[in-house]
């Protein structure tokens, strides 16, 4: 049984901070199929489109019939743990600092044998289920997990290396006065966060729900933060930058309006100011500190969360300026992901459909409750995901994009 995680002690300020190291990152292009599945939290294996053989490690052709028609398909994650070992020595710096480390051979019910990280609650000879997760290099690895959930299983140090669980971590919610910001803060508290820094972009304005949340839980600390103001962002980073382990950027600017029907770019500029430049300001102020603390104990800095929109992937012309800012934000997030990769801080992008909030008043249902998006964010962090699609509309649009993105363009334009 996994020992429950102990709340981390206050850090001794003169103690050296352990610098981040990464597990080996190189992979063949074929193996990146595993990464795509892990990033979205699904379990897929390379499968032959002709004979149906499932294979691992990934190859260029089918090891049975030599067909080149290889596809990635949902696979049965069940297997038997037929051998285990505990590494007590490693030449690799990352593992050397984390010994002992348990790995094993799992004979998959679907065919092949795989080498996997082994959860401490798995018994040799017993049934396990495999999961694809991203490691601190951002690359996919297999974890053998107990067949059924066990108490505190997410607290196991090896598994926690692949996840970004809010438990005992400190979270900055950049805009805590929006419905989304409040929902995210509540979800983080429920998930066991040690502290929530609740950003307040409008200290001159009273928002009852904000005040109520601050009053309800001593873990909530209101902080002044306006992502459109570089000084404001820098001031906050100087004050709490070393304590932020998960940053959820809830600052958002959503307005209706396309491009041709206007004579100015004020709307577009405002959207970019918050949605794109705001993210960049936060990243420049908080990113380096988070990277520095990416291996700092059990409450190391782990995740940067961007709440985007499914329209980051396909413009909604009725909100053309805003859509463009979402696409730009997605592009910036991809750069952040590359820039954070060296430290191992995960960049998680959230792609919801329309959300039930004031600026979506005229959008017909289905609309997502902010609490539902917040829940998906917590689950994404606990699962260690990189891309989270929330709600039926987001899922549907994504499927349609895969089928025919030209058709989606035409249909969204109507």
């Amino acid at each position, binding site marked *: 049984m996994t020992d429950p995680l102990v709340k981390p002690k206050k850090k001794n300020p003169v103690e050296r901070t352990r610098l981040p190291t990464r597990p080996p990152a190189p992979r*063949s292009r074929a193996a990146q199929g595993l990464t795509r599945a892990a990033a979205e939290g699904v379990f897929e294996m390379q499968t032959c489109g002709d004979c149906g053989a499932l294979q691992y490690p990934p190859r260029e052709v089918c090891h049975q019939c030599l067909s080149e028609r290889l596809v990635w398909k949902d696979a049965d994650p069940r297997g038997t743990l037929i051998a285990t*070992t505990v*590494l007590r*020595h*490693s*030449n690799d710096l990352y593992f050397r600092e984390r010994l002992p480390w348990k*790995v094993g051979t799992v004979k998959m019910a679907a065919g092949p044998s795989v*080498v996997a990280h082994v959860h401490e609650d798995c018994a040799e000879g017993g049934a396990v289920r495999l999961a694809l997760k991203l490691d601190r290099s951002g690359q996919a690895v297999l974890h053998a997990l107990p067949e059924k959930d066990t108490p505190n299983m997410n607290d196991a140090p090896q598994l926690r290396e692949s996840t970004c669980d809010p438990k005992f971590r400190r979270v900055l919610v950049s805009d805590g006065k929006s419905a989304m910001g409040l929902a995210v803060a509540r979800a983080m508290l429920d998930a066991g966060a040690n502290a929530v820094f609740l950003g307040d972009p409008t200290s001159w304005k009273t928002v009852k729900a904000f005040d109520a949340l601050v009053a309800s839980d001593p873990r909530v600390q209101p902080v002044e933060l306006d992502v459109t103001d570089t000084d404001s962002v820098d001031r906050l980073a100087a004050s709490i930058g070393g304590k932020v382990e998960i940053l959820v950027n809830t600052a958002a600017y959503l307005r209706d309006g396309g491009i041709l029907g206007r004579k100015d770019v004020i709307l577009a500029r405002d959207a970019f100011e918050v949605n794109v430049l705001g993210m960049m300001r936060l990243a420049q102020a908080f990113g380096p500190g988070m990277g520095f603390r990416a291996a700092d104990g059990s409450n190391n800095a782990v995740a940067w969360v961007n709440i985007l929109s499914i329209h980051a992937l396909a413009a909604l012309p009725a909100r053309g300026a805003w859509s463009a800012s979402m696409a730009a934000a997605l592009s910036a997030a991809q750069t952040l992901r590359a820039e954070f990769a060296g430290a191992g801080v995960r960049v998680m992008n959230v792609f919801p459909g329309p959300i039930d909030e004031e600026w979506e008043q005229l959008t017909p249902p289905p609309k997502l409750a902010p609490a539902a998006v917040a829940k998906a964010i917590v689950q994404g962090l606990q699962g260690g995901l990189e891309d989270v699609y929330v709600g039926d509309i987001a899922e549907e649009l994504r499927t349609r994009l895969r089928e025919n993105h030209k058709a989606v363009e035409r249909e969204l334009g109507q």
Partner: protein
Amino acid sequence: MSAPRTRLGYDGVVAVMPVTIPYARYSTRSAHWWLGRALGELIRGSGLAKAAVDGVCVSSFTLGPDTAVGLMQHLGMSPRWLDHIPMGGASGVVALRRASRAVQAGDAEVIACIAGDTNHVDSFRNTVSQFSRFAQDAVYPYGAGGPNASFALLTDHYMKQYGATREDFGKLCVAQRENALRNPHALMKKPLTLAQYIDARPITDPIHLFDCVMPCAGAEGFLVMTEERARAMKLPFVRIGSTIERHNAFPDDPIQFRGGWAMDRDALYEHAAVAPADVDFVETYDDYPVINMLQFEDLGFCAKGEAPAFVREHDFTIAGSFPFNTSGGQLSVGQAGAAGGYLGMVQAMRQLTDSAGATQIEGARVGLVSGFGMINYDRGLCSGAAILERGQA
């Protein structure tokens, strides 16, 4: 379907001139230096002119970016037959196999088979981190930066499946160390007791310190030529009774508990017209003790799963009931990269030409050399074996 074709014998082809370039734990030299010295020893020792060596067969992990081709210019050789065998622990057997057929067919007259590697302070790490694509994709990310974890997994499985104990593995290691104390080339110079073996620090459960070979620098070599030439040059020679090789055997086994020998051993003994009982000594590839047990079983000295009992019954020292790894094996001599795949071959040649010095087995007539190599992902892929026989009475 037509009847299976009969394999030709190795009549008229012999192996001569086993050479060892004494190993060093670390070396500042490159692989070219070690391989060049081995070739030099072969030429000087045999009395051949350099140009008379018209075939070369090379194995090395650390020769990069060169291959055997670049090495030929480096060494000033112009062979008409050249092979590069990247098969690790199976390289010695496979080199003998390839070279003997080339000489037999007349494609070359004299083939120098050489294997060697250097070992810089950090080269073991570099070699393992670039070993194979499957290892890169599916082993290194799990902390197993090297073969220890892969062998730990199959050792764990073998122990649970067949009841082998650490004492059984220890008995083999202790016997090999005893043999090594008679071999001046062995890097391990101190006796090893079973208690020391058992108490050694764990590396990767159930692998402990003395289950692991020590990487080092070194080179080995031998010549393949016609019997007629060997007689004319008065070089002591060994005959090749039979050889086998196999790659990626039993791919559907969920974890390795047998090697390719199990597919080919009947052919091995039949072709040489000998039985396991006729074999006077065995030189296995011993990168980890469990692999010795696989070889005892798969080469027919006992049935599958019975190697632990076989180990308990026998004495594996030079004067014992089952003389085995008489040089001390890689576990006690050191693992000089690809030269580790030649260690058993040159030792067997010495045994069969009465040049094994203090490790000599009285009157050895038939020896078995076995090779195993290349953990590409989760298991060793190459296996091979050769039966060698005393040339001159």
